[in-house]
């Protein structure tokens, strides 16, 4: 996990980079950014009323069946979504007004050893967990065979996606 030397008074970096298996919650007007998602999935949660936002960069679908998930909830779709939601509520968000946007979950390779597509499994796991928690997915840009870099504007909940195949520009969700 990244460590920011967060001493009082020190400036917050902008954009804040959210690496693999990390998530970040904020009520400030900053940008959260995850680079080069392939089969990994970005889950962006936003509560427009309180302005509390969170971005997770998850790597694997299922934390509940993995004993490591306690120490590293951000690694798995299910545990990351729950941890983010809890922390967002603690930061002032209203559970019922949180909305989700997801991006990533490509399947770049067709190796036999991969078995079921790894990207799709991340997308399915996130959908299932969000559905279980009653958080609506209001927009998504998932699947395919391309990498994506995402920027989540925590001031208004816009998720901008830069895809390697779409050189013309940025998709905004």
């Amino acid at each position, binding site marked *: *996990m*990244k*460590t*920011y*030397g*967060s*001493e009082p*008074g*020190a*400036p*917050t*970096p902008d954009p804040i980079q959210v*690496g*693999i*298996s990390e998530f970040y919650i904020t009520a400030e007007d900053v940008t959260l950014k995850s*680079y*080069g*998602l*392939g*089969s*990994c999935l970005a889950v962006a949660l936003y509560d427009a009323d309180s302005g509390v936002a969170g971005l997770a960069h998850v*790597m*694997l679908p299922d934390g509940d069946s993995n004993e*490591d998930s306690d120490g590293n909830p951000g*690694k798995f779709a299910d545990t990351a979504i729950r941890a983010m939601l809890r922390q967002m509520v603690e930061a002032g968000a209203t559970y019922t007004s949180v909305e989700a946007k997801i991006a990533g979950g*490509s*399947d*770049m*390779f*067709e*190796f*036999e*050893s*991969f078995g079921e597509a*790894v*990207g799709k499994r*991340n997308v399915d796991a996130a959908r299932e967990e969000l559905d279980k928690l009653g958080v609506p997915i209001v927009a998504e840009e998932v699947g395919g065979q*391309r*990498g*994506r*870099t995402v920027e989540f504007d925590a001031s208004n909940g816009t998720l901008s996606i830069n895809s*390697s195949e779409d050189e013309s520009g940025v998709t905004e969700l």
Partner: protein
Amino acid sequence: MKLDVNALGTFYRMAREGAGLAAGRLTSMTGVQTRVGVTKLNFMRGSEIRAEIDDGSEKVGVRVELSAGLEGHSIIIFDRDAALQVVQTLVKEAASEEFDEMDQSAVTEVGQIMTNGFIDGWADVLGTVIDVSTPDFIEGETAEPFFGDLETAPSDEDLALLFRSQIEAVGREIGYKHYLLPEHDSMSEILERQRVDGSDGIEYDKLVGFDKLAQQGATEVASAVTTLTGIETVVEIRRLNFVSLETIPEEIANEKKVGVAFSFDGTPSGYLLFLFDEASAREIVEATVPSPPDNEFGEMGTSAIKELGNIMASGFLDGWANVLDTTIDHSPPEFIHDMGAAVIDPVVIDLGENQEYAFVFDTQIQAADRAFDCDIYAIPNEDDLERALNDLDVDRVEDAKTTAEFPVDEVESDT
């Protein structure tokens, strides 16, 4: 001395915690925002460490002796210019061009703060107390003044375990190298204590032997590239790293890469990726396709790059298989042209189902006369690697044939 993944994981956490505390201390001393970048454990030969330091530039460093819970030496080395920058960025508005006494004491202070951060982090992870001597300020251009007088310094053929981490201040990397040279006994004791009961672990000597061969395999790959493309290439960097899986994509530059990926199967199984920057991939197409197409990454170019990848993969894996006296099969090549991190994250995800850390055989091939860079990542499945290495007969290392056969005809007929 046996390496067990759990014990290495402990060392990895030490490296990360240490870097985190070091960064935090720098922030609280200076009020400047700092951030820890990629952290890894790096196995490096004494000769490679010396070569890394002997690059002809002036260096300054801070060295301390460790005792109690961990015995050995910890040395932080800055390039002289980088040290001046550190002083400038962190300590005062404008440092003078000269390295005066005040700068020296500022660097010693920064070095000491970082060292104390690292060591407190290690002690936390190990749950022990580590005593630290007063710091020595050292200047020099070679490795000699920094650790020539130390018994813990690795001999040329020894693999030392190094902690590598990056700390950035205000978006700019603070350039430093950090070497932990533990006493052999103290290190084996810690490794032994952290080992999981029932785990076999990997004999250190076997890892050293295998790494030597991996080096020859890399040389073979470079010469295969030269044979097929006419581009004179050499192995520029070659390292064996132990990292958390998440670190692997983070380390790859975010620009678009052209790559060829393979899965391989046998003992060990795993993934092998060759990543070229776009300019280098264009060079390959121009060198191998008789009348280069307008779109280098169209069907013809893609197939040329895949074929070269295929031959490089055979060279690399045949070398391993010969030494391990086994068969390693690889999949057909998968071509990718995408953002660096996105190219490798599917592999990391697949391995991540069963392991948290990975040994990464990291090689960089470069050309002398033009821009040609190829990064090779071989990431074996950890259990398989452990099994393969434990079966390795170290005596075979000296006489094993590592030269692979390259079916050159096949390539020409395909392009």
